[in-house]
């Protein structure tokens, strides 16, 4: 027994030592490790940038290539940590900022979430570096609201995406519609959708359009396109109960009631994701859908035989014509960053068209300044989709809606409200009023 007890103590000590040793090498100072670890850091003169990246999958590989190119060009060592959502929604960034151990630079793939950090005063301003980044006057108008809070710049968009209406041209022809004349108003969209829908008795074979699938299901897409203000930054008040907002949910509910919400739920539950060959647009279960430019890449990979066209998102009278939601990846400097100058250098490098080039080529994503469009291969090739994207991005009706410190919560609540209207046939006006009353308190 004595032997067993001694072994147990020995095991404990060994385990603690193992854990401790692993930290001595990796941990006590990551900077120290890199500064002493390889030739690159001595070349960098000990200059190390700590950077948190939100990317995973293919995007992570692209970011690693970007970092390698930056290190090669500047000699600055980048300590990159791939953190889900850049640590914004899971407490990691909050803890790091509070503990004064934040990284020098964070990239976020959710602009609304990043904005909530700016509104809460957790970020350093970029104001003194804007000219250095070359963003100044070239910036398209839709990005200004996102970048600034109370007149100060806190977020720098790296690139962006726009939303468009995708439609199947073969199905258009089959239904007697002209593929060169996609719908431009909600009324036309509804008419086209009806013509494109195929029923087999009471069973749905194909839906012409479902307003709440793909990006249409995001909380702010249709509110923005219908012209709703959602949030008035000048008064700090939510504006969810205007007629335009109510009209969005009544319009969605019209589809639900027409085709039976339970049947639609069952029909849509079999849909594959955006990047799977089972996506309803690829399998022909849906004839039109609203989604971003990235979908062109998904179609190229998974459904090269599907013939499709893209168009501006239809809007009702009084809606945001030629509008789109911009979905940007943004850079931010958290409070406590120790190497702001290196962060600026990295962002400046990242904004260069040749660095973003492969990203643009793969996803048809767009730069944030109009002049840089000319340097993108799609523009050089005269690609009509990219031309449309450029037009949409430059539109005064392009933007990031609902930029508040409670954007993530507002988004979740609106999605729940949408389901409540569609599947429970509830009155949206009452629900919107109740939601506005509830969230307005959280804003104060």
């Amino acid at each position, binding site marked *: 027994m004595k032997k067993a007890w001694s072994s147990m103590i020995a095991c*404990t000590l060994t*385990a603690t030592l193992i854990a401790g040793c692993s*930290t001595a090498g990796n*941990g006590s100072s990551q900077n120290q490790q890199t500064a002493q670890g390889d030739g690159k850091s001595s070349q960098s003169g000990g200059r190390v940038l700590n950077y948190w990246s939100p990317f*995973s999958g293919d995007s992570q590989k692209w970011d690693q290539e970007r970092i390698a190119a930056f290190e090669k060009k500047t000699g600055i060592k980048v300590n990159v940590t791939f953190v889900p959502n850049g640590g914004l929604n*899971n407490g990691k960034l909050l803890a790091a900022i509070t503990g004064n151990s934040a990284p020098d630079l964070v990239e976020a793939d959710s602009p609304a979430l990043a904005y909530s950090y700016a509104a809460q005063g957790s970020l350093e301003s970029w104001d003194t570096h804007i000219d250095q980044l070359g963003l100044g006057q070239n910036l398209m108008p839709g990005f200004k609201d996102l970048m600034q809070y109370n007149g100060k710049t806190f977020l720098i968009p790296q690139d962006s995406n726009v939303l468009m209406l995708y439609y199947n041209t073969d199905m258009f022809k089959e239904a007697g519609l002209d593929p060169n004349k996609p719908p431009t108003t909600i009324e036309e969209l509804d008419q086209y959708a009806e013509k494109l829908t195929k029923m087999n008795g009471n069973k749905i074979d194909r839906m012409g359009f479902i307003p709440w699938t793909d990006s249409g299901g995001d909380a702010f897409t249709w509110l923005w396109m219908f012209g709703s203000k959602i949030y008035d930054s000048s008064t700090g008040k939510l504006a969810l109960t205007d007629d335009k907002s109510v009209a969005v949910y009544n319009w969605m509910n019209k589809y639900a009631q027409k085709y039976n919400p339970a049947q639609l739920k069952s029909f849509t539950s079999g849909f*594959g*994701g*955006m*990047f799977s060959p089972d996506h309803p647009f690829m399998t022909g279960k849906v004839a039109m859908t609203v989604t971003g430019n990235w979908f062109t890449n998904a179609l190229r990979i998974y459904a090269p035989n599907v013939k499709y066209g893209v168009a501006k998102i239809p809007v009702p009278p009084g809606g945001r014509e030629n509008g789109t939601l911009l979905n940007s990846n943004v850079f931010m400097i958290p409070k406590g960053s120790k190497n702001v100058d290196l962060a600026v250098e990295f962002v400046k490098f990242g904004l260069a068209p040749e660095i973003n080039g492969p990203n643009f080529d793969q996803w048809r994503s767009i730069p944030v300044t109009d002049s840089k469009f000319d340097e993108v291969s799609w523009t050089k090739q005269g690609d009509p989709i990219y031309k449309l994207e450029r037009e949409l991005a430059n539109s005064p009706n392009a933007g990031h809606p609902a930029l508040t410190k409670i954007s993530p919560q507002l988004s979740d609540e609106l999605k729940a409200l949408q389901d409540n209207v569609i599947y429970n046939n509830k009155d949206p006006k009452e629900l919107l009023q109740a939601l506005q009353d509830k969230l307005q308190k959280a804003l104060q």
Partner: protein
Amino acid sequence: MSIPSIERKRDYQLASAHQRQSFKNGIQLTAQYILLLIFAVCFLIPFFWLVSESLKKPSELFEVPMLWWPKSPQWSNFTLMFSSFPFLLYLKNTMMLVIPTMIGSIVSNALVAYGFSRLEWKYREQVFVIVLITMILPFQVTMIPLFLLFKELHWVNTYLPLTVPHFFGNPFFIFLLRQFLLGIPKELSFSARIDGANEFQIFYRIVMPLAKPVLTTVAIFAFLHTWNDFIGPLIYLSDNHMYTLSLGAQQIMGTLDPKWNILMALGVTMTLPVLVLFFIMQKYFIQGITMSGMKG
């Protein structure tokens, strides 16, 4: 009526009563088995579903009605899973946390629980209540203060904040062990003391061997907690080479393409060690059942 015929009748009555009794027992047993079977199926279905999903094509994952078993199992999902992220490195990192955590949990909680159950001291019950009260605080509340504390100790981005605290007791485990230790007759300790054993010898020679079943439970719980922990490693680690399997799972998921089938393959792979551990430790649970006879 003659005596032999009375005896025959009695024998017949006894035999039929016995038959009735065994029939009744048979029904009772069948009912028990059916009930157990229903519960077993309820617990097995999610695991079966996980295995089935891990072998499906992406297009089969969300089919309605549900596809119980893929038409042609995609074993390549497992190969893809191994090549999608550094599985072995993350497994090693996870084990670096799991092993010290299990050892720390067993040693520290056993000592503390012994103090709360087998030793008499002033304000013992009050202190025990204070220990229990600490369970009320959720991690979200203590997250930032703990981070600040570990930062001051220069432990951030090391495994220390994820292992060392387990060597200082856990209120739930202390509670679990204390309740068990209270059930061991005090006479055993008295006899050992008469035989000349000191308190520490009583602890490890008499009480701990009897507490094996509950120590096993603590070990399994500690293993599961660390194995599945996502938020702890996420908060304290800022070096991808130190990441654990649960953080690796997140890295597989692309923003636009979650790759569910590969995630499910990882789910199966991550569940296997837990199952193995349970089957190894199972006999100690059975020991626990036989031990309950000793108390009577």
